[in-house]
């Protein structure tokens, strides 16, 4: 291809380096690229993040997404793009603010500024064509915005993106993102061949000329940056010791399902869960799997239950409103003890809420959203790597305990991209084909072991195992029973399985000292941000540790004992809690963070909480403030 391009060879760059730009050498740097929706900032950011990860930098990307497909141009809420935090060491969260921002218009930039997304001395590269636009309003908006931004300590560098792109294309709106990618490639000294590969991969379904044109634009950006910018950023690379792969959380869930040997995913499109099925749809058939897009959320759950009943554990994937609709079916699976895995990629709520935004507010709905006493296992991965591995565990637990296992991720994990050690696949992770051996004489469909509540599952096709599953209360023979003891016994057996599972769990580990003034408890995608905040707090001399739960029902054991070694325990969550001091809010009527509520009921420890629902991932800085506000008084 264009590897012979004269401008971007290693040699050419080396000479330029020597000539002059200041090299900012830092252990980590955070980049944001924002544009109007449809201008491709996301693609640019994804490729930049992927290439950075592939080169061996630690990386974490977060998508900045508007909820509409086509929001109005040049509007703050329409800002679309990516934040990529790269580092020498592994990166576990999106950080506090961006050090370098590339904006396709000043309104998107202004919106990010107002959201405090920019570091106080951020470098800002902004498209400058608006300054001289034909439209008076636009010029006025530009001027106003620049006045606001000019009062900050940002270093603002206007860039003639469109003007440059017009030299090689007649539709710059579609090419700017590649120009910007080229600029970033020069600034961060990215491997240009990896970038070309990524562009080709990205346009693999289009004509070859499309990829070529995009590569050309990217190289244009590279040359422009080289000729015009006076700084570069170096985030040193330390090659990780083990092979790594880079995935987003939804891809990881999908691959996890493959690694778990599952073969049926039934779903209905819902943001932000759908991309699990997009990715699975591309590859699943190669593994003998089916993605069934059902007519609605309810049918998706039903098809998964039917498939699970007749063979291997199947799964359904959804987000909050879809979970609400599947509730009745989840109850049926619980009652009939048909194993089922439900992946819930949480988003902002209630109701339709914020479809593309992050929240951790489905915990209690998952645990308690069904009518009747419906015990089930609930888990939450803390990292993208865990998204992959947890599906394997979830399937196996569902099968062993004949129960529903819910896996709660969120929009942060779903669209975030992070490198992690490439899994060493094990055939034993995979579901066995259904065992259709004849059922031994006298074995009942619910031959509950009275001590554990466990029983062997019969699968259609097994001679001698004929019985009718029912959502009605039933006895060991699956016969409908209305007598009081039958119902009581069934409830006990279904509940006991969870108690038994809990006895097999290990107590969670504490991050930091195992005693101190404050223990921060978290779950789900906040792990990286919490631990970074804890590190900073400890660096300031605060006696803070953290603990991150993966299994939320049944709760991991030993919590009360761990809590007793801290003066105070508090959760950090992305869901709602009342703040003491707000009107009408008392210690008694205060609504608590969802995990906090759960921990209090189970341990009777006065667990406090610091929660926010901004629709965005929490920032370490914010959590640090939360920690400081919650530190128990008195001596430090």
């Amino acid at each position: 291809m264009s590897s012979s391009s004269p401008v971007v060879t290693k040699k050419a760059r080396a000479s330029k380096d020597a000539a002059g730009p200041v090299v900012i050498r830092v252990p980590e740097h955070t980049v944001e690229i924002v544009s109007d929706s449809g201008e491709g900032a996301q693609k640019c950011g994804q490729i930049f993040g992927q290439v950075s990860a592939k080169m061996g930098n630690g990386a974490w990307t977060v998508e900045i997404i508007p909820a509409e497909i086509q929001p109005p141009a040049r509007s703050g809420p329409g800002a679309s793009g990516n934040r990529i935090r790269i580092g020498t060491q592994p990166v576990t969260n999106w950080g506090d603010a961006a050090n370098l921002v590339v904006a396709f218009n000043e309104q998107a930039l202004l919106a990010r500024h107002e959201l405090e997304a920019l570091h106080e001395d951020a470098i800002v590269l902004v498209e400058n064509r608006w300054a001289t636009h034909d439209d008076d309003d636009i010029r006025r908006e530009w001027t106003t915005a620049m006045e606001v931004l000019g009062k900050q300590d940002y270093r603002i560098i206007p860039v003639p993106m469109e003007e440059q792109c017009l030299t090689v294309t007649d539709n710059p709106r579609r090419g700017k993102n590649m120009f910007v990618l080229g600029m970033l490639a020069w600034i961060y000294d990215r491997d240009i061949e990896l970038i070309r590969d990524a562009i080709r991969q990205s346009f693999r379904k289009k004509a070859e000329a499309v990829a070529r044109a995009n590569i050309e634009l990217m190289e244009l950006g590279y040359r422009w940056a080289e000729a015009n910018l006076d700084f570069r950023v170096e985030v040193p690379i330390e090659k990780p010791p083990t092979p790594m792969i880079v995935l987003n959380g939804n891809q990881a869930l999908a691959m996890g399902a493959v690694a778990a040997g599952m073969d049926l995913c039934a779903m209905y499109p819902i943001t932000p869960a759908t991309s699990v099925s997009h990715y699975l749809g591309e590859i699943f058939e190669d593994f003998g799997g089916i993605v069934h897009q059902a007519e609605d959320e309810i049918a998706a759950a039903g098809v998964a239950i039917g498939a699970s009943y007749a063979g291997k554990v199947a799964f359904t994937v959804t987000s909050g409103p879809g979970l609400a609709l599947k509730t009745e079916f989840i109850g049926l699976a619980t009652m009939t003890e048909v194993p089922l895995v439900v992946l819930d990629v949480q988003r902002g709520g209630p109701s339709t809420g914020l479809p593309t935004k992050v929240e951790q507010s489905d915990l209690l709905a998952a645990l308690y959203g069904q009518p009747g006493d419906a015990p089930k296992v609930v888990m939450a991965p803390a990292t993208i790597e865990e998204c992959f591995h947890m599906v394997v565990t979830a399937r196996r637990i569902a099968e062993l305990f004949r129960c529903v296992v819910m896996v709660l991720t969120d929009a942060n994990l779903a669209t975030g991209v992070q490198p992690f050690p490439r899994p060493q696949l094990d055939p034993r992770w995979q579901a066995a084909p259904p065992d259709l051996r004849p059922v031994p004489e006298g074995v009942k469909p619910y031959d509950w072991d009275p001590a554990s509540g466990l029983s062997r599952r019969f699968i259609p096709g097994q001679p001698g195992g004929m019985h009718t599953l029912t959502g009605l209360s039933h006895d060991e023979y699956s016969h409908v029973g209305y007598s009081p003891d039958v119902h009581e016994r069934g409830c006990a057996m279904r509940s006991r399985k969870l108690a038994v599972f809990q006895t097999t769990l290990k107590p969670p580990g504490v991050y930091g000292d195992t005693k101190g003034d404050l223990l921060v408890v978290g779950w789900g995608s906040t792990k990286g941000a919490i631990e970074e905040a804890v590190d900073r707090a400890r660096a300031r001399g605060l006696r803070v540790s953290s603990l991150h739960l993966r299994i939320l029902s049944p709760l991991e054991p030993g919590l009360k004992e761990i809590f007793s070694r801290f003066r105070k325990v508090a959760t950090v969550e992305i869901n709602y809690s009342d703040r003491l001091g707000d009107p009408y809010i008392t210690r008694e009527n205060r609504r608590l963070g969802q995990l906090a509520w759960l921990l209090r009921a189970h341990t009777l420890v006065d667990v406090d909480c610091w929660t926010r629902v901004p629709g965005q991932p929490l920032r370490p800085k914010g959590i640090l403030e939360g920690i400081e506000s919650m530190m128990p008084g008195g001596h430090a």
Partner: protein
Amino acid sequence: MPSDERTAAILAALAAPRDAYRSALAATLDEVRVYRDARREGAADRHMQLGASLGLVGVAHVDVDRLAAVLSVEAALEPAAQAVMPRALAVLESLAARGDDACALTLVPGENLYEAVSRLFADLGRAIGAGRVVDLARSGRYRPADHDRWLEAFPFGQWSQAERRMAPPVVIELEGSDLRPAGLAEFLDGGAKIVLVVHGETSPAPLVRLITPRTFVAQTADVAVVQRLAAWDGPGIAGIFPAGGARFVHDPGVAGGIGARLTITEVPTLDGRRRAGPFSATQQQDELDQLKALQGAAAADLAVPVAPQPATPADPVDKLAAWLLQQADLSGA
């Protein structure tokens, strides 16, 4: 290795039934593997298998020993049964490792067709034999003296009806002079499908004697007929012949009587009395006579009035007229 380019197209057309066999093979292999792992000798090893099955998150959070204590343990196998497991697995693995070509065979001129097909099925049937050995072993009924040979060969004659439904399709290339089809009737059961790719001269309608109500039988030059064979949910045989000879398709997948099932496009006449390979002129004539007899039966079948009243005609005008007549209800008149 298939030498005829038609064979590749035929194998492609047979993908669905072949996948069914290979699916069963893959499932068997995995099921045996899991079965073996769950019943390892020694608790430590068994716990290791259980732990591994939980995945990395599971291992990090679950105390495998405690979990193992909760789960019921199936009894360990007796030593002989234990010993045969790896051998059965090896058979399954070797069959799984063989590509799709395993179902194709080219006859050495003069070789006996019946014996070759027998051998091919007996070889592919080792998957079934291995499955049976495992079944017997795990229910304590395995006896090496009686059952070990199933791992070497498992002839079609011993397959059960359910197993025959999973029979893989086979493709045989052969010289016309070696085409003695009568013995093949034995294999036309369950879901077994045989495609013969014939080179050179043979008798005009050798396959006609295999026609039975539930057997797909075709004689043709057109490879596309194999797709219809593949779609039929039962046994069948298709001969792909060079020019000359009878051309017909008997497709039991088509609803209705023999008239609907059988389509004859060509019935040649014998040009003089001469032998074709092993077939005497009389035999050849007999085949053609049988084909004509079936043709007659088919015609008669179609001629039988299909209803007390004439069937609704296809032409819209006639349809309307017929409908009006029906509405008039002349039955009482």
